[in-house]
Structure formats: C-alpha cells, structure tokens
C-alpha cells in the first residue's frame, strides 16, 4: 500500500467523513430521544404493529418496535442507515479510479514510481478508514443516546452491531470500486452501484413477501445485514459476515487486477 496515496486520500475524504459522521450522530440521537415515549406506550405500539402482516413489517425493517433495539432498528439501522452509508460509500468508492480519469489527473498520478496496485490500495485503505469512522460514530451515538434515555446496552451487542455495519460497508465499497476500476467517469459507476444496491434491497423485500420469490434471499446482501438482531442480543451469523466480506474483498481484488491492466488515459 502507498502511504503517500493513503494520506492524500484521507485528507481528500476528511470533510465528507466529518459531515456524514455528524449527520449520523445527530440522527441516531434524534431517534433515541423519542424512545421514552415509545417505551411508555409499548402496549399500544404492539397492538398497532399487530394490525400489519408480520412479513410486511419485517420487509420494511420494522418489528418489535417497542424494544430499544426494535425502535432503533426500525427507524434507523435497517433502512435509513444503509441508505446514508451507501450514498457515502458509493460516491467515494466510485471516485477512486473513475474520477482521476474523468478529471484527467490520472496521467500525472501514474507518473510516480509506485505500482498501480499500491496506489489504489492506498485509496481503498483511506475509504475503509472513513467507513470505520462512520460506523464508530453510529455505534457511539446509539450508546450515548441509550445512556440518555436510561437504557443499558451491552458492549458485546455494540461490538456486534459495529461488525455488521462495517461488513455491509465493505460489501458496497467492493462493488462500487469494481465498477469504478473500468470506468472513465464517476457518474456511471456511482449510478450502477446505486442501482445494484437498490436491486439487492428490492430482492430482499420481495423474497420476504412471497415464498415463490424466497430464492431471492440468496442473491441479496441485505439478507446478511441484520443490525437490529446484533443490537438486540449481540448475535451475528458468522456466515453472513463472511458473505459480506467475501463480496467486498473479491470485488476489490478484481478491481485491482482491472486497474493494473487498463489503459489509464483521460
């Protein structure tokens, strides 16, 4: 990995990461600030939820909303968080190669005595560092919010949550970088990665609504993404985490190979 490239990429991302982290913290605290009201009206909430089919509620990330984990999951972690995180990861991931080509800076960048693989690895390490900061901000804000509303969350649950969130980011970053590695402008890989993420989400929702479409569970990264369960009882399915990591790492390796072999011209 090129440390020079890593430092520059980190500097380039710093303000973006800061604003996203701030947004995630504020949103997390906002959601938790409403939890005391939900807790006080837990019975009515349960009755309300019971009026919807269970599969529909689960498909849209809302179940057991009278518990803290259910409330945070339904209102934040299951849908809103992956949306926010995907925007950051897709934009930053799609920029890694394609924006250098689009802006024409690739020629000068590749005139340095450093291999393409190490240069891209430096950028990817900075992207990973950015994701770690955002996940830490998310988990930290939930822990802080829980403290303010007199709820206790086990450290193990928070660590499990962090692992699930980070692995989701790794998977999305993987295919975003892969799409960027052969593109000439950032818009295309960003659009394709966003479309792919949406397709994964739709596949996951549809798979829950009908048994006929149950097989779609096997092709969606959202199947392996269960932050609410991690927060509830600290449980993570190792195969789910492994699946997300494999998607991210495999796509990244292919991206490195493509970038090494492609024409680097604007």
């Amino acid at each position: 990995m090129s440390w020079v490239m890593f430092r520059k990429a980190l500097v380039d991302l710093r303000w973006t990461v800061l604003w996203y982290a701030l947004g995630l913290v504020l949103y997390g605290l906002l959601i938790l600030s409403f939890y005391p009201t939900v807790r006080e009206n837990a019975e009515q909430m349960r009755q309300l939820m019971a009026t919807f089919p269970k599969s529909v509620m689960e498909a849209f990330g809302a179940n057991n909303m009278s518990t803290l984990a259910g409330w945070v999951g339904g209102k934040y972690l299951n849908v809103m968080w992956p949306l926010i995180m995907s925007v950051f990861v897709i934009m930053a991931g799609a920029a890694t190669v394609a924006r250098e080509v689009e802006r024409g800076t690739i020629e000068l960048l590749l005139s340095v005595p450093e291999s393409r693989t190490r240069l891209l690895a430096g950028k990817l390490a900075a992207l990973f560092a950015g994701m770690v900061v955002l996940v830490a901000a998310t988990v930290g804000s939930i822990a802080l919010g829980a403290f303010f509303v007199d709820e206790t969350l086990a450290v193990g649950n928070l660590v499990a949550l962090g692992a699930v969130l980070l692995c989701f980011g790794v998977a999305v970053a993987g295919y975003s970088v892969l799409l960027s590695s052969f593109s000439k402008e950032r818009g295309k890989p960003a659009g394709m990665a966003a479309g792919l993420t949406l397709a994964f989400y739709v596949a996951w929702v549809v798979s829950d609504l009908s048994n006929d479409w149950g097989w779609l569970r096997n092709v969606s990264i959202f199947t392996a993404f269960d932050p609410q369960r991690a927060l509830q009882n600290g449980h993570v399915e190792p195969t789910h985490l492994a699946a997300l990591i494999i998607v991210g790492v495999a796509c990244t390796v292919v991206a490195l190979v493509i970038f090494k072999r492609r024409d680097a011209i604007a």
Partner: protein
Amino acid sequence: MESVPVKVEGLTRNYGKRRGVEDLTFEVGEGEIFGFLGPNGAGKTTTIRQLMGLMRPTSGTASVFGLDCWKDSRRVKEKIGFLPGDIRLYEKMTGGELLDFFAAFRGARHERLRRELAERLGLDLSARIKHMSKGNRQKLAVAQALMHDAPLLVLDEPSSGLDPLMQVEFVELLREEQARGKTIFLSSHQLPEVERVAHRVAIIREGRLVAVEAVERLKHLRERRMEVDLHAPVPPERFSALDGVRVVSVAPEGKHVALAVRGKLGPLLRLLSDLPVDDLTFAPPDLESVFLHYYEGDEKAGRPSERPPEGSSEGYPGARPQAEVRR
C-alpha cells in the same frame, strides 16, 4: 543496451477504428535532446503514454534505460520526470502541496532545485491551483517534472501556455538540464520550438514515423515563406536564379514577390541588399513544408510514402550517431 535512455521498437497501438501509432522504431541517445515532432493528432501523446506505461502497446516494445515501459513501469518512472500534454492538476491543492505530494513518492525533496525552479519560473507556490492561470499551471507542471532530478525528462508539448519570455527561460532550462547530463524527450507540433533546442528530431504523421533527422539537416530541408515588397519592379528570375529559392507568386506590377526559401540564406540576403526593398516578412519554418519535402516525390508517383533522403542523420554532441527510418 542498458544505457539507452529510450528505445522504441515496432511500437504499435490501435484504438479500434481510431488511428493510434504504427510500427514506430527509434532510439534516443544519452545526453540528447530529442524532438518528437508532428501535427496535432499524429500520435505523439499516444507514444508518450506508452513510454510512461499508461497504455499497453498492441505490439512492439518501448523501453527506458533497458526497462520495459509496461512490465517494469514502476522502475521506469523512477528514471523519468514527466510533463503531460494536457495539464490536469489537483485543484484544491496549493502549488507547494502538489510538489510535496509528488516528491513524497520519491523520498528525496531536492529543496534547492525546487526553490530555484520556482524562482526562475516565477511561481507562487502558496496559491491554490484552482486560482492559477493556464500559464501558471503549466509552469507548476514543468517544475514538477524537473524537480526530481531524473535522468530522463519526457515532456509533452511543454511550452504550450507559456508566454514568449517564459518560453525563452524554459529553453534555457532545458539546455542547462542537458548540460548536466539529462536526456530530454520533447514532443511538439511547432517546428521552430524543436529546432531551437533539439539535436535530433523524429517526425511523425498519421501515426507513422516519417523520418529521424538531425536538426541541422532538417533546416536544409524545410522551406520558409518570404514576402518582399519593392518600390520598383524586379524580374522574378533574379530570385529564382538563386539556389534553394522558389518564386511562389508575383504581384501584377512586380512590386510584391512571395518566395519559398530553403537552405542557406546568405545569397538571398545579399541580393535583397541590392534591391529597392520597402518591407520584408520572413515566416517561421512550418511543419507542413517538411512533410511536403518527404511526400512530394511520391505524390508525383501517385502514392504517399515516408521514404527519407539518403544520409539523413548527422551527429550531435554526446550522442551516438543513428539514422533510423521506418515506413
């Protein structure tokens, strides 16, 4: 040979239907300033991109100091200071930050060289690149290419965007670099620029190498246009009688003569000093006249060719004699 700074053999690059370069073969000797001359779109930048390992050749090879430009790209770049043709820099950085960034990849900062370059080029390194004019960006990119003290400089259209005074300073810088033992590969579409500084020139057109010539030889081949205003008519035969002078046109009253001049100027200047000359313009040499030289014989035969004249290469200080010519 290990010591050959640049060696290109049968280099071909296709872009599908678009033309790239085809079967280029030439060498650049150590300590030489080598001009790479051709009109826009001829294939100069495509060749340079292959030297820099930015593109893989379709066939053939390019090597720098014996290292393959594609396979050993990282080590090749340790030996090159590079100026791209289309300058695109990181807009948010200051000039100083940009130089720091590129220096950091090489470990050594060459502080004194960097400071001298900034002073001579009149660069304000504290300014943000997004606020710099095209000329200042070009100067910054020139400083970036030269500051690494690399043994080979690959410069793609380096004087583009520089004002005339800065172009003079830049030529002086190149001469100093060459005197310090650097080899310089310089592409341009402007014949006068290359003539001023290069020892030898490769001429490329439509992706193919037309010839590799010593600059002194080139000066004998190309024609320059001269327009002479006279306050009394002069028979055009007086001009055409001179060796290397061709009368292109004569105004009806014989007071305005357009000439094409090739080779030594002395006899023509002596004639002009005896004539009633009102005014005179002498155009800089242009590339087209050089191409005409190579093509005119074949056009008569009804087909284009890049066959060069016999004995087309002359020596230059510190370089091996060579006369590679490819179809």
